């Protein structure tokens, strides 16, 4: 029947439009990146530039206080190996944290850093940090995790102490797979 053929033709066309729009969703990805690059508005994917003056400023000493928290329910003992360190701005420093998984099963967690005072985060450049990735610990495993950082010498004069605080969140439903 003629109508049947016409119905089929129209529905196929519409199906092609639907498929095309699915593809369009993906086409938005390069389009978005192009727009951002053209306008220079996406700073997320750019590497944060290192301090231009890499000389160590030995005239100042900054106290970095290390703090650690776990969200309620995460069966980890999480602590810094030292409670604070004294650093000179511009000097590369490494501190270590220790996590113990006290649950009888593997657990995946994600650490989120925060700074006190908050604006000090801008001057606190982490070169290496366990907070960059998920951490998965086997049952009963103990692990030492390094944080390597530089305090930018441009840190305002009035700031003599920076509190670096990490909070570990459990990544649920992963069953210990990272």
């Amino acid at each position, binding site marked *: 029947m003629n109508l049947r053929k016409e119905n089929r033709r129209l529905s196929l066309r519409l199906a092609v439009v639907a498929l095309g729009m699915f593809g369009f969703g993906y086409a938005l990805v390069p389009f978005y990146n192009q727009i951002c690059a053209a306008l220079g508005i996406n700073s997320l994917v750019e590497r944060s530039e290192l301090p231009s003056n890499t000389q160590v400023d030995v005239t100042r000493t900054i106290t970095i206080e290390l703090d650690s928290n776990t969200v309620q329910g995460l069966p980890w003992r999480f602590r810094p190996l030292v409670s604070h360190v004294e650093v000179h701005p511009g000097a590369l420093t490494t501190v270590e944290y220790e996590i113990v998984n006290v649950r009888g099963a593997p657990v995946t967690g994600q650490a989120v850093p925060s700074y006190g005072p908050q604006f000090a985060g801008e001057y606190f450049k982490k070169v290496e940090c366990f907070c960059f990735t998920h951490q998965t610990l086997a049952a009963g495993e103990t692990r030492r995790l390094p944080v390597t950082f530089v305090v930018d010498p441009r840190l305002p004069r009035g700031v003599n102490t920076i509190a670096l605080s990490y909070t570990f969140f459990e990544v*649920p439903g992963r069953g210990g797979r990272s």
Partner: protein
Amino acid sequence: MSAVVDTHGHDHHDPHGGYGGILRWITTTNHKDIGTLYLWFSFIMFMVGGVMALVIRAELFSPGLQVVNPDFFNQMTTMHGLIMVFGAIMPAFVGFANWQIPMMIGAPDMAFARLNNWSFWLLPFAASLLVLSFFTPGGAPGVGWTLYAPLTVQMGVGMDLTIFAVHLLGMSSILGSINIITTILNLRAPGMTLMRMPLFCWTWLITAYLLVAAMPVLAGAVTMTLTDRHFGTSFFNAAGGGDPVLYQHVFWFFGHPEVYIIALPAFGVVSQVIPAFSRKPLFGYASMVYATSAIAILSFIVWAHHMYTVGMPVTGQLFFMYATTLIAVPTGVKVFNWVATMWKGSLTFETPMLFACGFLFLFTLGGFTGLVLSLVPIDIQLHDTYYVVAHFHYVMVAGALFSAFAGIYFWLPKWTGKMYDETLGKWHFWLTMIFFNMTFFVQHFLGLAGMPRRIPDYPLQFETWNKISSIGAFGFGLSQLLLLYVVLKCIRSGAPAPQKPWEGADSLEWTHLPTPVPYHTFETPPVLK
């Protein structure tokens, strides 16, 4: 409704294709049966989503954490949004489309009857996946109904179930839309030109195009999330070079047309109801059609007004602000036409008309708060506050849901052959109207005072309005049980309805078909003057 269709079955030989009981509903290809299925499904989902809303409001009754923990609270807000949008409102209007479009254009059925059956039966599976996600480790996703990355990339298995549910829901909508477009374009009775169609058919035709264009983009966005989670891609994962803000752009490219996917069929229903009870033809029919199309086209270029605060250049903010305020023009044309239809009409206020008037009043109010939010400087202040929650509930509940109620009361006599209880219907309207405003009007104040959305706790100074809002929400929820009672009472023991219970109604189902409508209608096309 089923009871009536059954009684009618005695007149025909083998009316339902041979199956009885549950198999009849599983195998049915009849547009009326499928419309009924859609409507009941959406009512059940409305109840499920409503209970979730009440959990939210119970927690927000007092400051501090009393009823649920914050994690579960987040799951409730997420699932409430997803279920109400995709499970309740959208299927309700597809139900109306199934029942009404073939009858209004003089077609015997939908163009693809079996596809129609499949479109519906995808929905219960999608809904089950959503509900199942509560029982996975980590629970249902608590990321907000917008499913923003990067949270979605980190969530547990529940997220995967939700993604698949969204895929199924999208597939159902796209198939349904293809069916509706084909039906309207190819199956109209001779003489039923496009510009003679009832406005409800026009709004659905345009909505269906919106669905075909927008739903696949959502499917793409959640597929990207899925591959980010399991297949090592990094669309939204900043660690791998992706960008979480990209998700918001892709999502809202779907999300804003989605707003009109919900609103346009509601406009269509109201455009049938208001002329019927004003006993006048719709004022400015052609301008209504053009306004609907203009809204649909504009809806694709305003998406970033949902994300003024992500850090976009001022030029971008200005463009999206002007484009958004532009939508007020065709919407204003519509509101003007509805009011002009009522102007000097012989008005009566039966329940459908009450709901249509409630729609008109409250939807316009929601439109105005939308206009407020479209302005960048104000939106930056109000972003993610209860002002936004109040705004979109005015357009989603008082807009879409009120119009669905109007449609139910309007067509129920035609579908079942029996009248509903007018007194109870009016009670339903007034209770709904009062409790709706009690729930949501005060949320404007909370938002202006700075209460953020999606947080289970709040400072003491917000307590009074939150208490009022919570009491209103429980009243609103309980009032909806009255609707169920009215519908059941109508099906069981309503007084017989005449062929045309509403004096001013003039579309084909009233003028050419008996009440209740036979199981098969317009097997030979009607003759149109």
